């Protein structure tokens, strides 16, 4: 098998611009027909902590993190020490001349190249400019097209002075390294050529925000919380062009209640938060459900519990979202597995929220939110806005008296919004009758309070089969029949897909059952796949196998083996393949 990918790792403390260097290399690659994945890792510190930017490039599809660099650029001592062991045999490490390499030796077969990366001049400037030096050294040592990178630099810096300065440093470093190094290096193995059609390098964050705009989202409210903040920043940045209002709230409770207010008033609205903020939204989730106000929230998981690890990844909040708020009601939880699904499923969530008048949650994680991958432009032609039973004044006029919570077969009632003639009603967080009136103990309701109570709950659950019928609850990847079926959800999809290919090369036939919707749980489609599965391996980024538990609770099915990871790092294809081999050798 030929080389699948070329892996670049840049490391340095925040402020050295290693992330922007990595992104520029990736951009240069993507514009020239390559596929790239960029994964940034950084601690929850403003300065001082180590930032790593990993760039994987290939001429064939790449979907995941894999930390085996062919070349490492280390701007600082820490970046060198904590990363050098990861470099592949035959690889190259270039590091700032200030780095001491005698304390931690490189692996056998790895060459060290000292380079002047941190620049002279004012402290801050010197640091920032380091990114151009990193890129220069990188190109010199790999023969990656300097022209392509220079084009990326030119595109990046609008300010001509900064642009020129960066190009100079790039050029200078390139020259110096070329001159000094001679043979040392690791050649970039793929041929660059301009891409025939434009492709994006985009993150889950971008994709969710774009999906929301495509869906006609007009209002957003939120409070900063890593790793969800990006979506709010995106919408704030594009608010004026797209006729959107973003309101920063005083807390997440206010945010979600603003969204409910906007939803009640007929406007599509998006919230975005992470576990701690979602905890604060808990109560309002039930309010939206019982008042049947559409609600869409991006819930981006990070390391927990509690404040936990704000900038690290985990998949440990599924249960939180599944069971948030007292009582029982229908909800939708979709866990996109890649940026494309971030886009399409966010769009769908807005439709579902209005069609079924239920809270919808898009469950991502730090890794998916923050990592960039190559993505063709989205084809939006077939994407249809559906607002369900939102009625107009004509309908209202011919259906008086209007009952906002009319009991129907599919559990969905006609919805009127303020401003409409004939649609006046009360929406409420109390258990209520068809007209929204509170049922407990009022003379008008006392005699049939029990029926009303049960009917309200049944109404909510009546929606589920209809939702289930229209969503792509699962996806089966790979062969219909395989020796081993992986079960995964959310961002683990990427690593599992690559692992599937790797396993095939090793002669193991593997397929992947991706559970895309956690609620309503697609039990029937899941079992259709699993009853045919020979052996199963569940893969989740948490300690208690939350999806596995949900699966067993719904179907009685327990996977043959589990691969659980909760150390704050994403899954890798190689890690999964090792586990596959272990399982298959039993």
């Amino acid at each position, binding site marked *: 098998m030929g080389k699948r990918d070329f892996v670049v790792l840049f490391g340095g403390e925040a402020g050295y611009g290693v992330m922007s260097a990595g992104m520029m290399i990736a951009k240069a690659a993507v514009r020239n027909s390559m596929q790239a994945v960029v994964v940034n890792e950084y601690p929850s510190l403003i300065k001082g902590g180590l930032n790593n930017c990993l760039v994987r490039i290939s001429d064939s599809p790449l979907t995941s993190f894999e930390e085996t660099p062919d070349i490492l650029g280390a701007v600082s001592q820490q970046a060198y020490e904590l990363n050098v062991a990861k470099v592949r045999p035959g690889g190259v490490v270039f590091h700032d001349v200030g780095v001491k390499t005698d304390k931690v030796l490189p692996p056998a077969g790895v060459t060290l190249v000292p380079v002047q990366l941190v620049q002279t001049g004012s402290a801050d400037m010197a640091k920032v400019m380091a990114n151009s030096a990193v890129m220069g050294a990188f190109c010199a040592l790999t023969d990656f097209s300097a022209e392509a990178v220079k084009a990326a630099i030119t595109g990046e810096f609008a300010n001509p002075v900064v642009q020129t300065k960066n190009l100079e440093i790039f050029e200078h470093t390139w020259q110096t390294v070329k001159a000094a190094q001679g043979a040392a290096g690791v050649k970039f193995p793929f041929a660059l050529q301009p891409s025939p059609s434009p492709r994006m390098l985009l993150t889950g964050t971008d994709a969710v925000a774009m999906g929301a705009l495509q869906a006609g989202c007009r209002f957003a409210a939120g409070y900063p919380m890593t790793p969800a903040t990006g979506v709010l920043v995106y919408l704030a940045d594009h608010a004026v062009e797209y006729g959107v209002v973003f309101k920063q709230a005083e807390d997440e409770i206010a945010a979600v209640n603003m969204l409910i207010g906007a939803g009640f*008033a007929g406007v599509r609205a998006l919230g975005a938060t992470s576990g701690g903020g979602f905890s604060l939204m808990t109560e309002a989730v039930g309010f939206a459900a019982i008042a049947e106000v559409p609600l869409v929230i991006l819930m981006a998981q990070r390391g927990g519990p509690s404040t936990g690890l704000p900038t690290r990844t985990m998949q440990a909040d599924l249960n939180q979202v599944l069971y948030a708020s007292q009582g029982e009601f229908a909800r939708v939880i979709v866990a996109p597995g890649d940026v494309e699904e971030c886009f399409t499923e966010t769009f769908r969530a807005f439709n579902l929220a209005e069609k079924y008048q239920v809270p919808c949650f898009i469950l991502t994680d730090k890794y998916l939110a923050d990592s960039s991958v190559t993505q063709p432009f989205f084809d939006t032609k077939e994407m249809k806005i559906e607002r369900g039973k939102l009625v107009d004044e004509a309908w209202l006029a011919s259906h008086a008296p209007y009952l906002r919570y009319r009991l129907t077969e599919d559990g969905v009632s006609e919805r009127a919004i303020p401003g409409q003639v004939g649609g006046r009603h009360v929406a409420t967080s109390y258990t209520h009758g068809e007209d929204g009136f509170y049922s407990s*103990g009022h003379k008008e309701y006392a005699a049939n309070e029990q029926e009303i109570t049960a009917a309200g709950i049944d109404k909510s659950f009546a929606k589920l089969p209809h939702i289930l019928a229209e969503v792509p609850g699962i996806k089966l990847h790979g062969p219909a029949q395989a020796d081993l079926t992986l079960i995964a959800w959310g961002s683990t999809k990427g690593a599992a897909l690559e692992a599937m290919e790797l396993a095939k090369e090793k002669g193991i036939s593997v397929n992947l059952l991706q559970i895309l919707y956690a609620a309503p749980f697609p039990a029937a489609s899941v079992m259709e796949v699993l009853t045919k599965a020979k052996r199963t391996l569940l893969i989740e980024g948490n300690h208690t196998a939350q999806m596995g538990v949900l699966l067993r609770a719904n179907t009685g099915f327990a996977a043959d083996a589990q691969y659980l990871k909760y150390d704050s790092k994403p899954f890798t294809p190689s890690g999964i393949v090792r586990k596959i081999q272990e399982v298959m050798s039993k």
Partner: protein
Amino acid sequence: MSAKDFASAYTSTWCPGCGNYGILNALKKACAVLDLDLEQTVQVTGIGCAAKIAQYTNMYRIETLHGRTMPVATGVKLANHHLTVIVDGGDGDGMGLGMGHFVHTARRNLDISYFIHNNQVYGLTKGQTSPTSELGAVTKFSPAPLGNVERPINIVRLALSVGATFVARSYAGDLTHLTETMVAAVRHKGFSVVDILQPCVSFNKLNSYEWYQKRVYKLDTLDGYDSSNLSQALQIGAEWGERIPIGLFYQEKRMTLEESIPQLKDKTLAERPVGGADITALMQELA
């Protein structure tokens, strides 16, 4: 339209003699005076005896969670700023759980009218201390002999301090005054707060009709009271004891949040079409 056109079909469940009846009557009268278009009006309430008012009126209404009126009203207003948004809630609702929202909503200055049914007690949960309960007040949560030891919140002073642009107090026992105050509050373009003194006949034996009747006096009986003078308002607002002033303490013209947002200039968000957005430019940004 007359006041009765603003009532729902349901029987009220407030205690006989409850101050909420006076507030409901005043609100219906105020709606009539304002000739409010019911279809274009949203009443937002919390949870509590006060909040049940939404069951007895008949505009668009949303009875939210305990303490969350302000953000829901903010969402409604930003979604469709042509709507008249009226908020009703209790003192516990607004000054307990809702305190943070109150302060922030005030500084935002949306065009919302907030009527606080201030009975100085938690009514619906049968009589606990509220943030406005008097020092020494004996309730289920602050039993005798000690009673309440936390300095009560003076809603008027607080509203003045945090930037509300219309701050008034009225009394559930004075229908005319309350109606007029409500009318002025709704007419005010900006965040208006009305602290409504409301007897709770079941759980607040101290602050009764008689108690208020003896103490309440009207600000406009004060010589030269100037409702554009904030420091005077703060000073008189502090008065609470033998005499309790009611009336308009302060009013100020300040740009509302809606007005400051360019996206809301020509259309409400609700009027804009859903769908049809072209995201090509966004995709190009990332290519």
